């Protein structure tokens, strides 16, 4: 009987209390109580300015194990994999610092959103395959209790790469390697191409490679939102601010050749709040540089590249912002539903957008024509002079088209070899890089995030061996060249 009474009594009281808190009697009134409490303190201690209860909600925490600079897809993916791979839930405190929460200039939202396996480096193919697997099972990876399922809007239509006679041999060896890695790529002769896609003019095309599976394009924004939602539910902290300063200490050491080497370690990151002079020093153990196009500047802040040229200390992170234009045009007679993402021999690319004969495309300018990356203004003459002629030559239907809109975005362009930088810096020992992907950061983000998290937690790459992408290649001048930059 006692048990019964206890059961009922406990049960009811707990239930009722629970429902009361839910209706917000004690919790929702918190702010009001705080101000009351402040007034009381002021009346007790009149002379003192009451900074005891100063509101610091908008500031980042004072300590964090890992600070990820850059809240784009790459940064969030690093955060996701750190939380996913940690041994005990909540073991690592992760803070993501993002300058602009509207992502107005971030490369993530402005990209065309393509994913392909047609790269010339095996590591890039592996990264792509890993990412495609991630995207396919995105509702398992990024499932949040009570959250609606994500719709990535993936268009599995493949990439069609065209090669002239000069590039045919390279294309063939690349496809061979891609097939070995497990990608489903088919080679096509101009005749087959003409039969498959009658709207293409095969003049000047010697060989084409066409991705049959796992290639296409998706909505980058929904991937970003999904990652953000998941990462937040895993307990990662977010902060809107800019990293302005690193507090470092340095140790002088001698290497085996007897040369003196300065090893640096970052202790604090100063995060400056938006539109104010206020900043918060965040003590941290590890900094991840995922600042995309601005990661070169961030590395300079940490003192990377500020030594005599030719030494490891003087080796800069060769990542700089490059402006790329994307145009959206309408062409009533344009290619139909089956249109893949076509990349011409001239470097012009386009894809279908929606069902009403709209197309999105652009072209990477040559070194000489490189536009000024200070702002995101669109150069419409570039389309008229450099893009349209090639488009119309490849697809005759594009003779008659109307540009509806255009935008510009940044590539985190690696001037050294157009490939990503992943892993720790050899001298600033607790700065890890995840940047410099020169336009394929979005599609490689899930794989890169995992690689960085593995290095951070375990000390070595496990899933995909990314040792060729380490920072030291800049000093050793070993270029890891990627030919297929679109």
């Amino acid at each position, binding site marked *: 009987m006692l048990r019964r009474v206890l059961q009922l009594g406990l049960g009811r009281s707990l239930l009722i209390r629970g429902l009361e808190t839910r209706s917000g009697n004690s919790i929702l009134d918190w702010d009001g109580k705080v101000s009351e409490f402040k007034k009381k303190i002021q009346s007790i201690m009149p002379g003192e300015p009451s900074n005891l209860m100063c509101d610091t909600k908008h500031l980042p925490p004072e300590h964090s194990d890992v600070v990820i600079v850059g809240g784009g897809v790459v940064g969030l993916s690093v955060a996701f994999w750190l939380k996913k791979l940690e041994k005990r839930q909540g073991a690592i405190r992760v803070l993501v610092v993002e300058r602009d929460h509207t992502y107005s200039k971030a490369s993530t939202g402005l990209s065309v959103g393509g994913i392909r396996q047609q790269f010339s480096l095996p590591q890039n193919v592996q990264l792509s395959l890993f990412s495609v697997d991630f995207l396919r099972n995105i509702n398992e990876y990024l499932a949040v*209790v009570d959250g609606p399922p994500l719709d990535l809007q993936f*268009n599995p239509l493949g990439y069609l790469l065209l090669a002239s006679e000069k590039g045919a041999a390279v294309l063939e060896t690349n496809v061979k390697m891609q097939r070995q890695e497990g990608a489903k790529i088919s080679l096509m002769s101009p005749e087959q191409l003409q039969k498959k896609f009658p709207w293409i003019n095969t003049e000047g095309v010697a060989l084409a490679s066409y991705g049959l599976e796992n290639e296409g394009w998706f909505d980058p924004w929904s991937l970003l939102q999904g990652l953000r939602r998941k990462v937040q539910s895993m307990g990662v902290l977010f902060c809107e601010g800019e990293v302005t300063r690193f507090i470092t200490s340095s140790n002088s050491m001698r290497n085996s050749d007897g040369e003196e080497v300065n090893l640096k370690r970052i202790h604090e990151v100063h995060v400056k709040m938006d539109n104010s002079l206020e900043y918060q020093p965040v003590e941290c153990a590890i900094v991840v540089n995922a600042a995309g196009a601005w990661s070169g500047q961030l590395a300079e802040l940490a003192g990377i590249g500020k030594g005599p040229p030719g030494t490891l200390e003087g080796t800069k992170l060769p990542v700089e912002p490059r402006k790329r234009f994307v145009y959206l045009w309408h062409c009533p007679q344009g290619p139909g*539903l*089956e249109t893949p993402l076509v990349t011409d021999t001239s470097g012009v690319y386009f894809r279908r957008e929606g069902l*009403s004969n709209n197309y999105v495309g652009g072209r990477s300018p040559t070194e000489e024509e490189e536009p000024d990356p200070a702002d995101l203004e669109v150069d419409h003459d570039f389309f008229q002079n450099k893009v349209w002629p090639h488009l119309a030559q490849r697809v005759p239907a594009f003779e008659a088209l109307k540009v509806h809109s255009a935008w510009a975005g940044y590539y985190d362009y690696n001037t050294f070899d157009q490939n990503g930088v992943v892993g720790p810096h050899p001298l600033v020992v607790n700065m890890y890089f995840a940047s410099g992907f020169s336009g394929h950061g979005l599609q490689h983000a899930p794989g890169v995030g995992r690689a960085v998290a593995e290095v951070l937690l375990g000390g070595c790459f496990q899933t995909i061996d990314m040792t060729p992408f380490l920072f030291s290649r800049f000093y050793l001048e070993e270029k890891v060249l990627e030919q297929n930059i679109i």
Partner: protein
Amino acid sequence: MRESVRDGTRWWGERPAPSGYEAQQDGGTQGVQAGFELTVILLPQPSKCREHRLAPPHPARDSERRILQEPGSWEFLRLIPPKWNGGKRGFRDLSGVVTPEGNRRKRRTLLQFLSDHFCDMEFLRENVLQKQMQKVSLENRSFTIIQDKYGRDIAGACFILQHGGSVKFRDREWIRSDEYRRFSAEVLKFQAVPVEAIDASGCAINYHGLDNLLPLKKLQCLSLQRCPHVDDWCLSRLYLLADSLQELSLAGCPQISERGLACLHHLSNLRRLDISDLPGVEYPGLTQILVEEMLPNCEVVGTDWTQEGPEEQPQDPASPIHAKPAARDLGDPCGVS
């Protein structure tokens, strides 16, 4: 932790109204965290209430008592409704096509509240979610042993039969499994006969499950009607059947959109394509026209513009699609009955 949570799940799912105290004392849930135990205590025991008759019925408290005694009123404290182990909710929840009823919403908000306040509850719910997803992927494993022993056609046929679909070998009758998904072993004798047609309507096949179907080189007719897990990614793999496939039905698949339909252009031998009733396609009419343009040799069955009812639907007398009862073991995932 995982062990104990699994114990808890089974316990909640199978025993309808256990007494909280006993369950704690018999050691079955010793590893379960504090928040979980709390909810265990909260559960009253309706049958015992009636036996003991603790207090005389009080008029004012009568209604309250009745609510307390009614098992239904306490149901929202369960982690999962008791019918859950049928696996029906599993993919209903994932495909997200079930409209929430009022009762369901109430339970969900309470669960939300609990998981906001008790981290154990949160972990538990995350685990349940993971379990639901694992179940689907477990069901879609490849039949590698059968494939090695009897060949690809038999493996594909067994896979479909085990999912509750039906299979037609060349020049044979349709074979289907019964409601417990059993089927006669004579399927294994058809080793030299290729599979000609598959009706997988309503089956929980996903991307990985297609591995069993794609090696069927003589497959001419494939019906994936109302498959809750067939999505655009699956359609992008159908190009492997391009040489033989002549009829494809995708009617009623909740996850298919026009983006996936676009990659059916690989299927050049297709004679008939059913894309009616796809809730994921935003502009069904326009999509149908574009698909017709893309596949000029193919008859595309899509939205019924004339509104003449189901007479327009393709009725193949040999196909068992319409002969079957609607309430299959898998249920009706997209709410179309």
